[in-house]
Every structure is written in structure tokens, then in C-alpha cells.
């Protein structure tokens, strides 16, 4: 599944990470020689985690379609574990929660793997939406029933349905782009995450005006505009490896950065409501899987459908 463009993109990301690692080390020696500056320590932890994430993604790309589907199924599992830890449920929901992990999640990714679009596009929003509450209803507990089933459905939409649209990109049939679909995934993740990182960098350098003070103290207009423009500029300059023209690529990048930003905003609101700072703790420096994936979660389905509608034969 490798293509020369993918290798170039991965080498480019590798180069950025080498640069970031060197910069992080210089900053550490200057500002935090005894490891006590939390911002610098967090920055270096983030860079180290990026290495791991990029290497895992590269391995999955090499392993082919099954590898990519499996990697994102595991991400879904970890994200769902984080999400359902914070939602409302009681003992009457035990079977529906078990079904979320061991039935809904594997089936959704199986449908993606066998390229059954008609099923994976409606499985969670139609079949699961209607059938899963039945399991909770049969157990007879009505306390907070609507809250419980709604939050469980939300967890599945965010953590399983949306994330599964990333590997689904592998199955689009774009004339003249055969065998290179993995670029779509790399491009989606690269633009969205670059936008996240650059919003963090611009925000730290120039951030003054908070966008939503009650939601997140770190989201500023300066960071958002600087980060998005940087990601759009870099993403547009890579148009030649995508199925898009330069103008189309710019439009796609605008969609990706906007949706990514919205994802961060909405998921922050949920964290605020539940009184937690991070979704989890497994990705050092970043928090949980959802903390790192929130922007991809919102961007992936839209990117998938716009690409499918305008460029794909299926």
C-alpha cells in the first residue's frame, strides 16, 4: 500500500518531528534543566508521544487495509472506554454497554472491512439507535432512561461511527487515484493535526482574545486563525499528491480545519460538564485518545462524504 507520495509525506513528518525533538531539547536545557518547567516537560512528552503515534500509523499503512482498519478499531475501543467512563449508566445498562464494545464496534469495522457502504453508513444511526435501548428497557430500570440511552448513543456515534470513517476512505474509487487512497487518510490526519499543533503554537506565542472563556482557556482567536491559516497553506501546497486541484485542496483544508476546531470545542464542553481536564491518561502529555482524536472525529465523516460525493464512483 506504499506509494512514493506517502513515503514523502511520512519523511516530511519525520523531519518535522526531528526538528521538534531538537527544539524541545534546546528549550529543556535553557528553561527547564532540572525538569521543573511544566510547559516544557509537557511539550517534550507531547513530541515523544507524536513519534509513537506516527510510527504506529506508518506500520498500519504498510500492513495494508486490514492493518489500518484494525488500528482504528483499537482507537475506537480506547476512545469508547474513555467516553463511557464519563457517561450516565446504571446496572440496568450492563448488557447494552457490553454490546457496544463487543458487538457494535466489531460489526461496524467488519462492515468497513468488507466495504459494505450501505450498512456501515446506517448501522449505528439506525439499527443500533433503535435496538440498543431495547436492551436497557428490558432490564426494567426507568430512572434517567432517556439520559442513559442518549449518552450511550452519543458515545457510539463519536467513538465508533465517526472514527470508522477514517479507514473507510481506503475504499473510495477515485478515477486516476487507484492504489493511492492511503494518501487520503494521511492527508486528513496531517492537515487536521497540523492545524491543532499550530493553533497550540500560535496560541502560546500570540494568544490574547479567548474564543470561549467558559469552555477552554487555551482556545484563542489568534491561535485559531494563525493555526488554521498555516495548516491550510501547507495542506494546499500538497495538492499534487491528492485527487484535488489546488483550489479544491484549499477548500478541503478549510473544511478540515474548521471541523477539527469544532470537534475540539464540543469535546471540551463535554469534559467541562463532567468536571475532567482530560479524557484519559494513556497518551503521555496529550491525555486520552479522545483528547488527541477529537478534531479527527469531527473532520473524518465530512471529509469522507464530500470526497465520496464529488470524486468517487461508488
Amino acid at each position, binding site marked *: 500500500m506504499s506509494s512514493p507520495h506517502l513515503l514523502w509525506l511520512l519523511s516530511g513528518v519525520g523531519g518535522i518531528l526531528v526538528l521538534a525533538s531538537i527544539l524541545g531539547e534546546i528549550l529543556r536545557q535553557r528553561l527547564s534543566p532540572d525538569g521543573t518547567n511544566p510547559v516544557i516537560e509537557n511539550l517534550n512528552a507531547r513530541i515523544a508521544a507524536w513519534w509513537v503515534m506516527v510510527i504506529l500509523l506508518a506500520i498500519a499503512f504498510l500492513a495494508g487495509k486490514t492493518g489500518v482498519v484494525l488500528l482504528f478499531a483499537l482507537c475506537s*475501543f*480506547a476512545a*469508547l*472506554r*474513555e467516553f*463511557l*467512563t464519563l457517561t450516565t*449508566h446504571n*446496572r440496568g445498562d*450492563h448488557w447494552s*454497554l*457490553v454490546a457496544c*464494545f*463487543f458487538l457494535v464496534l466489531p460489526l461496524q469495522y467488519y462492515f468497513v472491512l468488507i466495504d459494505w457502504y450501505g450498512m456501515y453508513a446506517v448501522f449505528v444511526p439506525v439499527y443500533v439507535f433503535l435496538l440498543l435501548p431495547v436492551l436497557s428497557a428490558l432490564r426494567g430500570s426507568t430512572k434517567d432512561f432517556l439520559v442513559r440511552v442518549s449518552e450511550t448513543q452519543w458515545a457510539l456515534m463519536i467513538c465508533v461511527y465517526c472514527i470508522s470513517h477514517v479507514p473507510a476512505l481506503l475504499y473510495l474509487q477515485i478515477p486516476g487515484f487507484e492504489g493511492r487512497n492511503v494518501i487520503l487518510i494521511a492527508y486528513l490526519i496531517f492537515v487536521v493535526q497540523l492545524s491543532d499543533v499550530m493553533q497550540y503554537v500560535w496560541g502560546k506565542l500570540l494568544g490574547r482574545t479567548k474564543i470561549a472563556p467558559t469552555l477552554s482557556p487555551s482556545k484563542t482567536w489568534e491561535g485559531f486563525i494563525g493555526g488554521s491559516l498555516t495548516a491550510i497553506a501547507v495542506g494546499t501546497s500538497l495538492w499534487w499528491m491528492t485527487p484535488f486541484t489546488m483550489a479544491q485542496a484549499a477548500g478541503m483544508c478549510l473544511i478540515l480545519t474548521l471541523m477539527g476546531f469544532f470537534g475540539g470545542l464540543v469535546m471540551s464542553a463535554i469534559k467541562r460538564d463532567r468536571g475532567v481536564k482530560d479524557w*484519559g*491518561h*494513556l497518551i503521555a502529555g496529550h491525555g486520552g485518545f479522545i483528547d488527541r482524536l477529537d478534531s479527527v472525529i469531527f473532520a473524518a465523516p465530512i471529509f469522507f462524504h464530500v470526497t465520496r460525493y464529488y470524486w468517487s464512483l461508488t
Partner: protein
Amino acid sequence: MSLRVRSLAASLTGQAISVFARFMTAPRAIWQGIEPVPRQRVYFANHSSNGDFVLLWTVLPPNLRRQTRPVAALDYWLKSPLRAFIGREVFNAVLIDRRPEARVADPVAQMVEALDQHASLILFPEGQRNSSDAVLLPFKSGLYHLAKSQPEVDLVPVWIANLNKVMPKGEIIPVPLICTLTFGAPLHLSADEAKDAFLARASSALLALAPGNPA
């Protein structure tokens, strides 16, 4: 030879149980009142699930894990050969008999003997799984007797959160949810502290670690 095979099997089974526990609960240890250093300790925790000691054992660093033995009920762990293998050989549990009429050894004496051999212990002072609505059941007196006979050993409260939702009593299949284990500051018996006063202090020290309670 067969002894070595058994001990290898025990070690691998321990690893497998630990990996499974991590997969289901992604356990997070918060060392709030104490550091994970090799000192002799009695970790005492709330007990709401059969997986409690497995999770506590799993989040200990490997060098501490090797010298830490759970205190568990003999009537439960000797019921089948598989349980006996897991209880005795995998976790090296100190098996105590909860039935005074049937017991041949005194539980406190067994625990003190393990401490004399420099082991650390995992203890559930409620004495049974808590499936009631109360957050914590009243403590049995074993913890006090240990504190009295081994005053230099750290008694470390550990609150295990969420595991009862992973596997509620009566369910067969666990549901994956994140669990946290909060390690508090160590307790010791004060000079001329009475039994009830000490147990109440230990109980409130443990309760203070529960999420939602001010630390």
C-alpha cells in the same frame, strides 16, 4: 522440572491476567500520599469486586509486585483446582479462613508471619465484597491487630474507583471502563490509640480518597 514448569506457568498466567485487567480498565494509579518505593507496606482498600486485588497488584511496579501478597478468603480460593492455582501460585496469596468455627490457623497470625518474611500485603478490611448501598462497610479488626504487632509497617489506604461498574455482582461479562486507584498517606497506630478510634481513622482516611470527596 515440573516445579519449574509450574512456576513458569504461574508467572505467565499472572502476566496474562494483568494484561487482561489493563485491557478492560486501563487502570491509573495516583500516588497521592506516597511514592511507589520498595518499603514494607500493608495496602488496604475498599472491596467491591473480585478483581480488586488483581488491579491493585497490576498497577504496582514489578519490583514491588513480586514482594506483595494479597490476603484472600480460603473458602473462595480453594474451591476448585484452577482457583487454587491462581490464588496460591500466581498471586502467592495469604489464604485466611473467614469461618471461626472451621479455621485451624489464626488469620492475624498468618498475616504477621507473612510480614515477618518481609512481604507487603494487600488487605480488604471490610472482610467481604461490598454490594450494599453504603460506600464502605465497617472495618474488621485485623488491620488494628497488624498495626499493633508491626508498628513500623506503613498502612497505605488505596481507593479503587469504578471497578464495581466494570463487573457488577452477578454479571458474567465485564464492560471496559477506566478505573483509578488512589494511594493515600500511610497510617500508623498512635501510642495508646484504642481499637475503635484507630479503625475509624483508617476508614475515614480511605474514604477521603474516593472521587468527589475533598482530599
